[in-house]
């Protein structure tokens, strides 16, 4: 408890010194592979539920194409985000297809998620106030939506990592919290399986 208090005090002292996030510096640390795949472990703590919900699976971020998010545990669920569309499959069954024509915010959502996974802070800065630190090949940032209405819904987002994004933490105002940890990251054309490539 005491340590936590100290940490809070420290961060309070440090944060004002940060000023504008060293976006350029972080961008320099991050690799920008054309294809990036890996394992994710997601923990959700929802308001009103005792136990956290854990899920894991694989994800791929393909430049100029989009994001593939395949939950494998506890059940198979695949989401594909492309520029103009969100498609979701439960197992093999198509569960949802939403395009930018039906829902204009699709493009915005997809851009943001892609940027978040790829660590494209330049893009994120358009929509968020970015505060953070960088040094020694590691970095961490906090994002706060510039639009107050959006901020209310999304809450606070924190990212950290090195060459790639390692952790994402989303704290929603409603009390739901999500933590995602990335590991076993591979890059290059061989990182994506043929099965995954077929889904794009």
């Amino acid at each position, binding site marked *: 408890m005491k340590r936590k208090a100290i940490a809070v005090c420290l961060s309070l002292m440090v944060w004002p010194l940060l000023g504008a996030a060293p976006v350029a510096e972080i961008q320099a640390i991050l690799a920008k592979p054309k294809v990036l795949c890996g394992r994710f472990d*997601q923990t*959700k703590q*929802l*308001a*009103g*539920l*005792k*136990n956290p*919900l854990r*899920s894991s699976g694989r994800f791929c971020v393909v430049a100029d194409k989009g994001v593939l*998010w395949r*939950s494998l545990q*506890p*059940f198979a*669920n695949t*989401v594909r*985000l492309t520029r103009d569309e*969100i498609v*979701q499959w*439960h197992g093999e069954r198509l*569960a949802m297809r939403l395009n*930018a024509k*039906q*829902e*204009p*915010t699709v*493009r915005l*959502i997809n851009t943001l*998620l892609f940027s978040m996974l790829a660590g494209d802070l330049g893009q994120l800065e*358009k929509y968020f106030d970015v505060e953070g630190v960088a040094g020694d090949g590691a970095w961490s940032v906090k994002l706060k939506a*510039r*639009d*107050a*209405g*959006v901020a*209310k*819904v*999304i809450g606070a987002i924190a990212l950290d990592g090195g060459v790639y994004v390692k952790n994402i933490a989303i704290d*929603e105002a*409603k*009390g*739901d919290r*999500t933590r*995602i940890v990335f590991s076993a990251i591979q890059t290059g054309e061989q990182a994506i399986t043929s099965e995954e490539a077929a889904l794009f």
Partner: protein
Amino acid sequence: MSWRRWVPWFWAVVVAAVSFHAGILWWHDRLVPDTDILALLPAQQRDPARQRALAQMVEAAQQRVIVLIGAADWDDARNAAAVYRKNLAPYGHLLRAADGISDHTESDWLAAFKNHRLTLLTSEDDAALRGQAPSYWLDRALAKLYSPFAGPQPLAWRDDPFGWFNNWVLARAQETPVRPRAGELFVSAGERHYVVLPLTLQVPAFAVAGQQALMPVLEQARQAAQQAAQRVEIIQGGVVLHAAAAAAQAQREMSTIGIGSLTGILLLIWITFRSFKPIALVALSIAVGCLGALSIASLVFERIHLITLVFGASLIGVAQDYGIYFLCKRLGANEQLDSWRLLRHILPALILTLVTTLIGYFSLVLTPFPGLRQMALFSAVGLIFAWFTVVFWFPTLVHASKLKNRAVAERYGRGATRWPRFAKNRRSLGAALAFAGLAGFGGSRLTVQDDIRSLQNSPKPLLDDQLKLGKILDLASPVQFFLLRGADAEALLQREEAVKRRLDLLVQQKQIGGYHAIANWVPSARIQQSRRQLIDKLLLQKDGALAALAAKLGEGQSWVSGARTRLLAAATPLTVEEFFQSPASEPWRHLWLGRVGDQYASIVALRGVNRSNLTLLRQTASGLEGVEWVDQVSEISALLADYRYYMGWVVLLSCVAVFVLLYPRYRQSSWRALAPAALAMLLALALLGIVGQGLQLFHLLALMLLLGIGVDYGIFLQEQGSHDDGTAWLAVTVSAVSTLLSFGLLGFSQTPALRAFGLTMAIGIGAVALIAPCFRRATADAQPPGSLG
């Protein structure tokens, strides 16, 4: 004779009275012409609910200007929008921007549904609720739980475990592609991001003064915004822009066509009379006619319709004939002949010309259309006033010594005798056959065109912008929708739901883009109750999906009962009244007409209406009680068709009536007075057929006028004595040329209705002036009663 003294004074008193009355009308601004096209519908067809519906849909659209400011980069678009807004700011009395969206909007928006959200379901979820097994819902809840990108959800998971409300909010948001973004309204299309600026007019859209003030302001704001960033696209749309373009065009034409015809008429009068006094006199008779018509018509009718004024203005063509005839006769008569005695000589012909024209207008009174009746009364009164002005004032105002130059008149007289005459010979037979062939050929090709859209004449860039705007914003049609009625709000909502079920199919088949209905927001009490019961029974009980979900999540029985209580607490019935208290209802309130008479009425508006799905939509309403398809475009077109139909009969019957009136005076020669007008009308119709112009109301209005004028000419020429001095022909020529100059030139107008009117007048008057002399009687048998000795 004393009556010669007091008659002009008596008429002066009458004219003073109507002038005074018309002045009051003018200055007290009661003279706001009725522009509502529905006012022209027969009274029994005017249904109050329908009128309210159209007023709410159309008038709301009428006072709106929507501006889209787009750029490839959102910040560029925002900057340009800020510049645009700043430029408009000083003109709040003309145009007001809608209030910006605050940070609270979204939560306020949701707050209204907080206690009702459980029964707010999309049609798909409703169908799933009624058709799917509980295991389906378990899967859905789990998928939602683990999904990483559920997007921003309006509620915490436990308040919406099955995602119904989330889907419903999404569906409601999708009723428009416009979204709030950083304090602006935002829409995207293609590669561009647009800021949407909804503006509300503070001046009436059809008031010319307001338009003139507004247009430069909008243009200046547009240019300023254009320069604020690179490659900014600005799309402006609104009824006022079209109205202003039409008014500007009318003004341009008034100054070109108007000046052209005025110079022409002045020149004509000068050549004929070597004096401008005649034109002042003719103008005087017309002015008195117009004042009288305005005054009497406004006493009889509550409001005068714009179309009455427009058609009434065309009176000039007939009203001038009386004055011109008098003046030409004066010019031709012996100087010793006193003007009052001259009048006595020509009075029979003058009476006949008036009566034959009036008969046509009186037959218009018999039609069931208030618009035509109003036009008829206006025209008849105007003609009577102009006529009396000629008869009561001209003899005193025009002395024999005033008009002396007879050189032109004499030349005319000589010319008249050389003009071909219709008789029983080969040449005439050939001409008759050629004419019959032409009329038959043209007549067989004649089509009708009543589509109101063919009368539209907005400039192309404006139409393109409007089209683009409609497409980007996916706006509902303001003139095509379903009108629903029910005994009370609940019955009405149930009927909306019946329509919704049919429309959902059309949306699925991509026939229409979507629809707006209050029932989208407030389900009927019946549906709300059945959903609540079904949800509780299938999902929230001990063996339901909620319990199965709890088992999966490792939660106990207390969690299930707690969740059930929470969910059911959010299922209190939502009413229309409650919905209307929420800011979320603001864009949709116009759909609910509420109580009209002893019923409730509402509108279901449609997105993506086009020519190809109109029939389908009309059929959609069939068989549903209390649901009516309203298509204002085809209704106005149908109204124009009805007017055209009745007008056609009136023209035909008028011909017969004119013949009957002419008969007592001209006996066997009566046809000679009528034939020129009849033939000219046939020729005009034939030529319209040949050039492929569909016949419409405005052609027939012109034909009606043509009949009045043509018969006048016929009468003038029949009155011509054996001592042919050519004055009758002079009167005909002067009148015809000035009519051609005033109305024929309208054929050059860019406004389709005026062009149709002008073209018919040009063909008809030209023809009648050329044909009429052919039917003069041979000098040998010419001895009409009362002719000048």
